[in-house]
């Protein structure tokens, strides 16, 4: 019982997610600043390390304004639900050697389904605010999620096909340098699809500040906004961790296995995402749809064919 409490509240539960949010947010701001030839936060704490903690806790002290005419269930309960659903996938991921909260034979399926529900919840938040801009933002989230989900699904099933199992710990045990090379095209497709799911440039269409004010975040303030922000970062964690587990071999390191390498691999994906963010402008909704259905999904199907071909050659008996 106490072990369950520890796992749900400290690691990999609530406290871990909050620590990850504060730390990753600080890292994003300093890294973007260095790319922009700026300095970033530098006044609170050494190199501004307390800044994001202060910013996020300031949100908890502000008033959560509920506008007139909103649907009370959709507006106020959805952020909490979004946070819970975003934190659930971390229960299926093997963080360290021999440590996983729920060891199930369908871990991969659970991961993909839980990650895929998020955009629907965010659409409902946009639908529930009594605001034209939020509604437009919600529709954009749904359109983008449906297109990118397909490629995401196809790409994340390729390790399962290669190793003939959906159990995440088994996938990690059987991965090696050679399997990484075979799965490399799948990893690239997974990376592009994750840009679409997380609304990062060049696919940051639902959160287009310059076009539709703030999308579905427009009417939120105070504690509601804090919950949505933590949900966004929890989603980052779920998807990065999923990518590391499926393709990059989780905690396997150079000379010894440990959680440190897991963290470094997640940070590597974040660094590439950030640098891409500083170099590409946004594309429009129709261009994104065309790109996804005309190029990305067919290439994902071809990738599955390649993985099956490679399995028949080198991975018989796996």
């Amino acid at each position: 019982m106490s072990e369950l409490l520890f796992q749900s509240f400290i690691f990999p539960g609530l406290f871990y997610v909050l620590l990850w949010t504060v730390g990753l947010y600080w890292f994003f701001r300093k890294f973007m600043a260095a790319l922009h030839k700026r300095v970033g936060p530098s006044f609170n704490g050494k190199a501004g390390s307390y800044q994001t903690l202060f910013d996020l806790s300031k949100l908890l002290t502000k008033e959560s304004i509920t506008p007139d005419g909103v649907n009370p269930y959709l507006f106020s309960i959805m952020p909490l639900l979004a946070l819970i659903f975003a934190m659930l996938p971390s229960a299926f991921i093997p963080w360290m050697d021999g440590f996983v909260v729920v060891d199930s034979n369908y871990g991969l399926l659970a991961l993909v389904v839980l990650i895929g529900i998020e955009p629907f919840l965010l659409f409902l938040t946009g639908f529930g605010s009594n605001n034209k801009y939020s509604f437009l933002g919600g529709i954009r989230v749904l359109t983008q999620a449906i297109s990118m989900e397909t490629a995401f699904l196809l790409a994340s099933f390729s390790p399962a096909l290669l190793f003939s199992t959906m159990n995440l710990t088994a996938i990690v045990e059987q991965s090696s340098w050679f399997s990484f090379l075979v799965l490399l095209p799948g990893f690239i497709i997974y990376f592009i699809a994750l840009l679409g799911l997380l609304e990062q440039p060049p696919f940051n269409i639902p959160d287009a500040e310059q076009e539709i004010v703030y999308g579905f975040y427009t009417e939120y303030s105070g504690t509601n906004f804090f919950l949505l922000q933590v949900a966004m970062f929890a989603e980052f964690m779920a998807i990065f961790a999923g990518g590391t587990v499926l393709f990059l071999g989780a905690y396997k390191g150079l000379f010894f296995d440990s959680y440190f390498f897991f963290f470094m691999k997640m940070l590597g994906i974040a660094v590439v995402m950030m640098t891409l963010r500083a170099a590409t402008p946004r594309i429009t909704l129709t261009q994104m749809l065309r790109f996804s259905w005309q190029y990305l999904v067919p290439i994902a199907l071809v990738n599955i064919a390649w993985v099956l071909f490679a399995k028949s050659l080198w991975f018989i008996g796996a």
Partner: protein
Amino acid sequence: MIILDILKRTLRVAKALTTKSPADRDVRFEAMHHPSRYRGEHRVDYETCIGCDSCNKICPTHAITMKHLPFKKQNIVPEVNLSVCIFCGLCEDVCPTKPEKSIILSGGRYDMLSGGWHEDQDDFWVHVDIPQSYIDSRLEEEEAARVKKELAAKKKAAEAEAKKRAEAGEEPKEAQTGLPDFNKGVEG
């Protein structure tokens, strides 16, 4: 292919990580660039100001109010309302005092901070604090000058009076001794 183009540009953007940003100072305490012509907070010199009112007349936003002093001449000095002033520097250009102007913005303070309450905003001015000793010394000077002028005027009036009498009559002047004329009325 477009994806390769995007990747090439991403790598070039990443090169910016190697340059150090020039923002290395805390500008609350020292400015990055503070030239001698910088138009900052006004410094008014009440001793050299001649009270010509030119700065008030040229100010485009009427930010200058003249403070009255209890003297006869040169009795106004400028005070500036910093909430209204646009720091154009025309008042400094037009001030006729030499060798240094009486109202100067060049090289002035750049951190003009007022307090945060409403009452502080009402007092966001550049005031001229004139010590009582200066007022007293100026009043004394004026008094001395006035007395001197009066004496000089009296002396001049007396001289003019004497001159007039010397021109008017050729009679010998006995009145100098103050005694009556004993010779008068003796004829006969």
